[in-house]
């Protein structure tokens, strides 16, 4: 069982690393990192913060693009191209197929996030090495601050949640494009989940509308919770361990629910 899931996951990883989309996103990430250096040099004293901020944002954005464009395609493309017919005739239970796909994409994302994080730390270490002591004293936190990893961890959890969401949609949607639209829609809504929850306080509307919008805010994954810590770590402020724990637990529960839904739907799905 575990071996088959591992096989599917490894296969997904291989598929992803050979996907041209990955390289396009990689090039885009490099471009952003390059831009952050340039911007950093223009703003004396703020360069470390800008590089940290842009670096973390790049990791998040590249991860989101990767998840959406590769993740959705993984199952939807198999159905579109009908390569799934051959695969599902093998002794591979459908739930193993879904979990294997998920694990493979997570592996791809973790490897990419790790590579981008390493590149960010290298850049920050270089900045630290060439900085004068007086410049270092002006920084809120050391350049290669290990607290950045907390943000990277939460970004990875955010991407894992987004992957589960994209996989969930691609198990029942009839086209890859529809899955992308659904996933992006929920992701963007999730980024504003906090605002939606307090909609009645921000905008003057009837209590029914406020409740309805607030309900949506509670229902969609609260993606903003994962990325909001970026500002804290960039300024060298510690992120409370309890917050990290609860956010990770929230992601884990949501992912488990989405995967359970994906498995249930996919197990019932028919392939004409």
């Amino acid at each position, binding site marked *: 069982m575990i*071996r*088959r899931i591992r*096989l599917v996951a490894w*296969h997904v990883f*291989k*598929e992803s690393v*050979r*996907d041209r989309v990955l390289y396009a996103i990689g090039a885009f990430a490099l471009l952003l990192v390059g831009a952050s250096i340039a911007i950093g040099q223009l703003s004396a004293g703020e360069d470390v913060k800008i590089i940290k901020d842009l670096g973390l944002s790049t990791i998040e954005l590249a991860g989101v693009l990767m998840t959406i464009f590769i993740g959705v395609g993984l199952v939807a493309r198999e159905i579109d*191209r*009908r*390569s799934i*017919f*051959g*695969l*599902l*005739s*093998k*002794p*591979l*239970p459908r739930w193993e197929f879904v979990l294997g796909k998920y694990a493979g994409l997570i592996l791809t994302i973790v490897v990419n996030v790790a590579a981008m994080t390493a590149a960010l730390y290298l850049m920050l270490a270089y900045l630290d090495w060439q900085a004068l002591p007086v410049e270092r004293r002006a920084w809120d936190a050391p350049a290669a601050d290990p607290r950045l990893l907390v943000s990277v961890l939460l970004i990875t959890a955010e991407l894992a949640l987004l992957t589960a969401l994209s996989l969930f949609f691609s198990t029942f949607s009839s086209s890859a494009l529809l899955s992308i639209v659904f996933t992006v829609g929920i992701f963007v809504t999730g980024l504003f989940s906090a605002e939606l929850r307090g909609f009645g306080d921000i905008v003057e509307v009837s209590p029914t509308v406020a409740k309805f919008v607030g309900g949506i805010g509670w229902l969609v994954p609260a993606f903003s919770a994962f990325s909001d810590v970026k500002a804290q770590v960039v300024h060298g402020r510690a992120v409370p361990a309890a917050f990290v724990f609860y956010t990770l637990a929230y992601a884990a529960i949501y992912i488990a629910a989405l995967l359970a839904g994906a498995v249930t739907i996919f197990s*019932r799905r*028919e*392939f*004409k």
Partner: protein
Amino acid sequence: MSTVVRTNLLTKDFYAGFWRPRPHRALDGLSFVIPSGGVYGLLGPNGAGKSTTLKLLIDLLRPTSGSAEVLGRPAGAVEARQRLGFLPEHPTFYDYLSAEELLIYVAGLFGYRGAEQRQRAEKVLDRVGLAADRRRPIRQYSKGMVQRVGLAQAIVNDPELVILDEPMSGLDPLGRREVREMILELRDEGRTVLFSSHILSDAEVLCSRVGILDKGKLVAEGTIDALTTGGTRGWEIVATDVSAALAERLKGRVARLTSIAAGRYAMELAADGRPEQLIADLALGGATLVSVSPIRTTLEDVFMRALGKEGAA
């Protein structure tokens, strides 16, 4: 003789329409049994329900009612899938993989490990004639080569039952011959082959048994011999030295009179016609009998009769 496939009143409806989906019955109460060994052909025109039947056996589709058993297990059971191979119609695989990588992956799904996994892949690739191209990406393959990859992935596990959905579809004559030969090889190894096709000549050459589907219903089923023998659909009599006057008289007595050469005619009598009487009359008229042969029922005749299109044959 054991049974590899058994269906009982297998029925499948598809629903079309967005607001008020209406059912369309693709398969209607199919009950049939495939004994182990030999080649079974599931025949029928396009839309008859052949692919639907195969997909129900593989669990790509779920029955609306009825049941199906494959290799003694409910259709779709992992234990059954462990012992069968399936080639979908117009197979597509992962473009970025080579045939070798794909086969290693598939062998892994069947539980083969390490060196055995690789050996399995090499063995079947060699068997389907792709050993030399095994490291090329599949996207560079011709249609015939992709079909051979499809066959390779269907037999990588040494299956007892091989299910092939339109295996000859879209292939050139050479490719079709290769697939035919492979099906016969699989049969000779003692495997059961179930394939769907609308090409009757292939079925006639390959199958020991056939089932003919039309509009989702099984309209004929049995061994080719049983379906075609006993079925003499007429007589062909060839005679020479037939005078013009005699030929004129014969026109009203035979189903068809064809002039082959000067004074040489081929006559076709219906199955209920009496060749003895005609032969005697030919002799009396001064003609010389060349041959008398029964016109056997072909699979095409059976097919057309089953589809209610006898006259069209």
